[in-house]
């Protein structure tokens, strides 16, 4: 079997993988990206709408444009890119301590083996499907995830149906509501089980309100009807969390798009023995974004689902620079625990250190105007940041400078707790 040795192998060439690989390569390390598709870019390639890069490039780009900027840099660098190649297995090398092995399958390069001193997981995420959310009824054609529809429309140029209903008000669903309307389809409704939308506000306005597409909050699809092709759905409002059958109504449609959440893609990680967070399904990482396996790091949607690609790039660069330190054997520092406090669903990373600045990403469990993000260690308040508005769909990021932690640096086993109040 053909074998190649690298200092660092990056799995997945989306926004995360490209940014991380470039950061490692910059310091002169032999770096490779393995990407299953024919092009670098990942999910960005099907997001032809605007809204990418405001932080990163200070201008509004489409997904493919954003991807292209990074892909050009990758091509100009010494990063070796294996396209149309899938990593099938990640394992520890039987021969040398600290080496990792990646078995890759490709129609271009055949079956080959990569050996690497470090690995970056950046496999992105996948969409939840109908089974995961268990909608009762028949199982006709015409039901698909919004992301698949997006791919079919934007890349392959096919319209999956004309009379559309969308379940879930996640960003992909909202963007597809607008996309399908532009393509001449009729979008009848977006149905959301929560009392608040799960996509960002900008998308609610620009994708639904501007097109008079009704959004039904606190409603569920209680039945799918149709034999060969979907014919209609039954929609039932929720009253105090219970289905209010009496006020159910029917919507005729030939297509049902599901935008019911994304889950980090961690099949490989799990098999490699990497510990995952049961909350977010991404690897548990320390403040350097390193997993419980030495030398394996994670960033981007495989770690936790992001709503802004700019954050993905930033997080991935930081993973890359930590890999550089790891390869130089200068990645050291005691890791202390970070906990999600009141009203916080999760915090990533789950550890912090005193050696440098720390960057945390989190999601709120509440919708609130005039909220405060508060970081504390026991009774000591480290930092508070004001937010005009928080909601579960908008990721919150907070950075804590090294100096800000000085107040507590002498005390052993200090834990941080981040709350939204």
């Amino acid at each position: 079997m053909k074998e190649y040795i690298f200092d660092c192998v990056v799995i997945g060439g989306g926004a995360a993988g490209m940014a991380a690989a470039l950061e490692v390569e910059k310091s002169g390390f032999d770096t490779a990206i393995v990407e299953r598709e024919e092009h670098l870019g990942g999910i960005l390639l099907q997001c032809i709408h605007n809204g990418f890069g405001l932080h990163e490039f200070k201008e509004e780009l489409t997904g493919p444009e954003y991807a292209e900027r990074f892909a050009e840099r990758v091509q100009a660098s010494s990063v070796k890119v294996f396209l149309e190649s899938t990593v099938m297995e990640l394992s520890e090398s039987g021969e040398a301590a600290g080496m990792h092995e990646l078995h890759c399958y490709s129609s271009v390069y055949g079956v080959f083996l990569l050996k690497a001193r470090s690995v970056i997981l950046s496999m992105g995420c996948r969409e939840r499907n109908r089974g995961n959310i268990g909608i009762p009824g028949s199982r006709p054609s015409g039901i698909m995830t919004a992301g698949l529809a997006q791919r079919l429309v934007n890349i392959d140029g096919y319209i999956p149906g004309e009379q559309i209903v969308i379940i879930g008000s996640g960003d992909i669903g909202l963007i597809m509501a607008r996309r399908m309307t532009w393509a001449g389809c009729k979008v009848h409704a977006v149905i959301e089980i929560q009392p608040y939308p799960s996509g960002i506000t900008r998308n609610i306005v620009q994708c639904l309100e501007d097109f008079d597409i009704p959004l039904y909050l606190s409603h569920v699809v209680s039945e799918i009807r149709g034999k060969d092709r979907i014919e209609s759905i039954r929609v039932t409002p929720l009253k105090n969390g219970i289905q209010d059958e009496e006020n159910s109504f029917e919507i005729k449609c030939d297509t049902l798009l599901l935008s019911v959440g994304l889950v980090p893609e961690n099949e490989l990680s799990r098999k490699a023995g990497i510990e995952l967070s049961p909350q977010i399904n991404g690897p548990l990482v320390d403040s350097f974004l390193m997993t419980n396996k030495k030398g394996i790091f994670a960033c981007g949607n495989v770690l936790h689902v992001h709503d802004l690609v700019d954050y993905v790039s930033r997080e991935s660069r930081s993973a890359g620079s930590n890999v550089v330190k790891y390869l130089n054997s200068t990645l050291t520092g005691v890791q202390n625990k970070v906990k999600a406090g009141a009203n916080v669903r999760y915090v990533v990373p789950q550890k912090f250190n005193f050696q440098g600045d720390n960057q945390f990403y989190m999601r709120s469990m509440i919708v609130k105007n005039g909220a405060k993000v508060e970081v504390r260690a026991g009774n000591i308040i480290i930092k508070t940041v004001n937010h005009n508005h928080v909601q579960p769909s908008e990721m919150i990021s907070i950075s804590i400078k090294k100096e800000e932690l000085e107040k507590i640096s002498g005390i052993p086993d200090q834990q941080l707790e981040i709350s939204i109040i």
Partner: protein
Amino acid sequence: MKYDIAIIGAGVSGASIARKLSQYNLKTILIEKEADVSFGTSKANSGIVHAGFHTSWKYLKSRLEIQGNLMFDGLQRELGFPFRRCGIIVAAFSEEELKHVQELYRQGVENGVIGIEICSRERILDIEPKLNPDVIGGLHAPNGGIIEPYRFVFSLVESALKNGVELFLNFKVEKAVRSRGTWMISSDDGQIVEADYVINAAGLYADSISAIFNAELFKIIPRKGEEYLLDRMSPAYPNKVIFPVPSGKSKGTLIIPTVEGTMMVGPTAEEVEDKEDTSTSTEQLNRIFDFSRRIIPSISERDIITSFAGLRPALESGDFYIDVSQKAENFIQVAGIQSPGLTAAPAIGDYVKDLLKKLDCSLIEKKNWDPFIDKVPRMRNLSHYESEKIVKENPQYGNIICRCEKVSEAEIVEAVKRGHSTLDGVKFFTRTGMGRCQGGFCTYKTIKIIMRETGLSYNQVTKRGRNSKVLMRKLGGDS
């Protein structure tokens, strides 16, 4: 076209009969209304090769079950479908249930079930550690097993076709007349097939087919069974098929490991009116999971990847009705094939062959009958080194299309070449889209491969034939 034998219905019954008859010098046609074989009840069931202790040998279905069970090892060698004799247990949670287990044991012994045993609590937990520790004992039948039912049917049909049987898909039998000693069978769209003998293996519609041929009048009662499929990562994956002890009213639901490493809970049993009603419901979901969790506590709704329902084509008698018609000439009934129809199918093939003898059909064995079919390499079963070799020969094996179930482009191409050109057909043949993401990633790639290999245009590709189109229109014009 004139045939000796026409078999109506390409489910597991029709397919088994077709393969059996392919051993003889007969011109046989297998007729199916759907776009592919096994699209009826034979695709939506529990996939269990039953052990033969559940009903008395006085029933035909029980005798054929026991005989069929014994035939699976040989068939697997010849046809290569996924099958494993994992064994079946019945778990008892009370003294009362334990008494019932003893009755099942006696019945099993009487029926001739090989290896059947009664287990103590210790033994049953040893065989199946996932069981709720409150279990107090049970039954173990090591001869029970699991198969992929549609792959079984596909391979039977492929073998039959290889030996000269012909297959008509999308042929819905609607009319039949007997004239000058043969049957003229017409489809709803005016196609005609002529045959001397007709075998009615139409599953849920065996009653209408019987009526069309002016044969016996009976009623098939659809009995719905809902099943839920759980992710292969589920911590509840058992070693054995697990039955509860049947109680008066409800049979309870089962916990089933599938041969391909996922697991299933179900089925329910509910009589319905509509023969097309394969919908699932929240009430049944809750029932199934509440019930199953008492047997294996680690079962969770969180692991559901999909659900489906199948309809058992039951007769009031509760037994199979396989016999020569007393009313219609040269007509054989294969009706009421409810559970354990899958298990019994190989024996049904033999049984029907013998019925043909009663009708003076001449059965002369072919000299060159070939029981084997070509096996398709499956990437998920190969080691890295075996994969390397096969990818060298055919690079399409290196293009992994379905990441959840590890299916390559070459396997999809092979499915299409063997006549499975709908998305569901490809899915059943290869498992693409059957895993955790349920086709979220691979569907568009599969559609493209189907289009390339068949020459179908985008709006001719369907999920499962007829009007189940996937793509409606091309962006920017020509619809």
